[in-house]
């Protein structure tokens, strides 16, 4: 963003002011994540930078809290991580299957009542989570699914499908329907056409919708707080109780792991988005 030489002074000042604001906002956005990193290696029990850490003394750093996270006797992180992954994986599978099939129907130009059905399908995204939590809890309690994995998985499918529906319909909006007609004219049945022709083309959209659904489930705490019993504790629930009760550095170790995980998800989501744009013929 080099300025042309003829720029007047006041615009020059304004330009640097603008750059300064942007820098500040970027730091504001990203810095909080980096505070956690060094502190999770703290050798001491306090959540502040010790004098040793400020002087980069190697003794001030340790893997103590990571060991505590993995081997700690009273630590529920193992169970929580297992539950979180199981729930998130099944919820993602459910959301992806239901959402993709629904998106196929929705992007057909024959679909009746498109507006109202679309509004219904994405409503879990618009309704504040706390209300979704109350409603889903009422259903699960009645169906006898409160405090079960099944109940939580179903709840997360409800919350995750809107993302899949949105990303897949977006992918399908640039979809050339003549290829499915070509497949049909060559004698392929609809299921075969979907698996061999449509799915490979919309796969980036499906997977990125699935990533959204996975993260939604993996990070979801409001609804789970209503639904979960002691057996169904998840990572977000443990973090929530930990942050409310005793803020121990073990939480920071967990948080660091979660940041690494989200970085991986971000990278895959970005790669998929680019691939999807390439496949849809959007050149930039």
């Amino acid at each position, binding site marked *: 963003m080099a300025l042309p030489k003829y720029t007047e002074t006041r615009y020059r000042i304004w330009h640097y002011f603008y750059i300064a604001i942007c820098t500040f906002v970027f730091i*504001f956005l990203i810095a909080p994540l980096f505070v956690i990193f060094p502190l999770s290696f703290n050798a001491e029990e306090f959540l502040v930078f010790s004098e040793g850490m400020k002087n980069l003394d190697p003794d001030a750093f340790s893997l103590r809290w990571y060991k505590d996270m993995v081997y700690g006797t009273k630590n529920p992180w193992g169970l929580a991580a297992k539950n979180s992954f199981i729930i998130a994986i099944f919820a993602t599978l459910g959301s992806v299957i239901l959402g993709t099939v629904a998106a196929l*129907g929705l992007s057909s130009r024959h679909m009746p009542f498109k507006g109202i059905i679309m509004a219904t399908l994405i409503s879990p995204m618009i309704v504040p989570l706390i209300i979704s939590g109350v409603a889903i809890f009422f259903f699960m309690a009645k169906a006898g699914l409160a405090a079960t994995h099944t109940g939580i998985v179903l709840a997360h499918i409800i919350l995750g499908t809107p993302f899949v529906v949105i990303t897949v319909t977006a992918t399908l909006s640039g979809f050339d329907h003549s290829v499915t007609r070509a497949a049909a004219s060559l004698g392929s049945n609809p299921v075969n056409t979907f698996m061999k022709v449509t799915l490979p083309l919309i796969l980036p959209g499906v997977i990125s919708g699935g990533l959204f659904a996975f993260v939604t489930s993996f990070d979801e705490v409001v609804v789970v707080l209503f639904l979960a019993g002691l057996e169904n504790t998840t990572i977000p629930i443990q973090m929530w109780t930990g942050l409310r009760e005793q803020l121990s550095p073990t939480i920071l170790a967990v948080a660091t792991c979660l940041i690494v995980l989200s970085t991986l998800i971000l990278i895959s989501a970005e790669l998929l988005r680019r691939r999807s744009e390439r496949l849809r013929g959007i050149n930039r």
Partner: protein
Amino acid sequence: MSSETKQILTTDGIPLEISLKKAERKNKIKAFLLVAPLLLFLIITYIFPIGEMFTRSIDDKMITNMLPKTFKSMETWDGKELPSEEVFASFLSDFKILVDKKEHGKLAQRLNKEKNGFNTITKKLFRQVKRNKIDETQSIKEQIMKVHKRWRNVEYWQAIKRTAPPYTSAKYLKAMDMYLNEDNKITQVSEDRRIHRILWLRTVEVAFFVTVFCFLMGYPIAHLLATLPMKYSNLLMICVLLPFWTSLLVRTASWMILLQQQGVVNDFFVMIGLVADDNRPEMMYNKVGTYVAMTQILLPFMVLPLYSVMKTISPSLMRAGKSLGGTPFVAFWKVYFPLTIPGIGAGCLLVFILAIGYYITPALVGGASGTLISNQIAYHMKTTLDWSFASAMGLMLLGGVLVIYWLYNKLVGVDNIKLG
């Protein structure tokens, strides 16, 4: 098609029009069948339960079912003097059934909510009934009136009559710090007990200011991201996307560390000499913490829609504005800014709706002044178990969100919401 034109027939002799309609209907059914599984699933597990929240929030059938005879005989009572012998008799017979079912406690609780003092007198009546002290051959009215002086007070019988309808608006009024008084008029509760209205106002206030802060911070960086060359903007985009994909609780935890009294932000203020070391300001467990943390957490939801709109605006438009004699500021204000309004609308809507239902972050960093209406809903769901009250507040919040959504749709159109 006029009747004179010859109908076009398909090969099997059916008029083309009918044949096409048939095919169209078949396609419609096909498309609908694809959507049906998800639609049904959501209707059963999600839409119906939201409807159930409504019936739950106005439901007052419990007491209607407890005192069926009493309410029947009260129909003819004018509610001014003490009711007749018949009402007392039917009340006693209803009450005896409740005692047999051990449900008199529930009745006392419900009546006590209507008017204070019912607890004691119901207990007294219960003891008399249990000991078979009430002789049904004599006047039941006289005997009940002897149990406690309040049974002689017509106000208590009026209170019972008020509970007769199977539906009540009491929960909604309670959420607005109001109630129905003896004359069925909507009254405000005394000033020191008006807690809910403060919470509603605070919720709207926090959501509004967080939206404003997000807009003020998001607009410049979205503009920078949209105008920088691709190789730089992709790198900077990570600064927006990484927080977006990172767990909400992780981000809240990091703010708790940053904002604490010995935290990094305070260290920094001391270092540049803004505050004295022994006078570090409290930045957490108050509104400052809520605003700072929520703004950072919701900022990506503002930047992403803004960015996707700004990306489509051609830079030559600004150049044209300038070449026609506008200063950069005028060109920006008259050309660029109006074109970004769909993005501003989408971003503000997203942030506001997310903020208004926020629960986790205010509960962790907000302290007492960070309690919002969502926290109150969760409290009544989990602690007091007053689910009908939680439902009523939830539906009021939902109503507000739907109104905002509707307004947005009128002004900007929903199709502008984009992800990533």
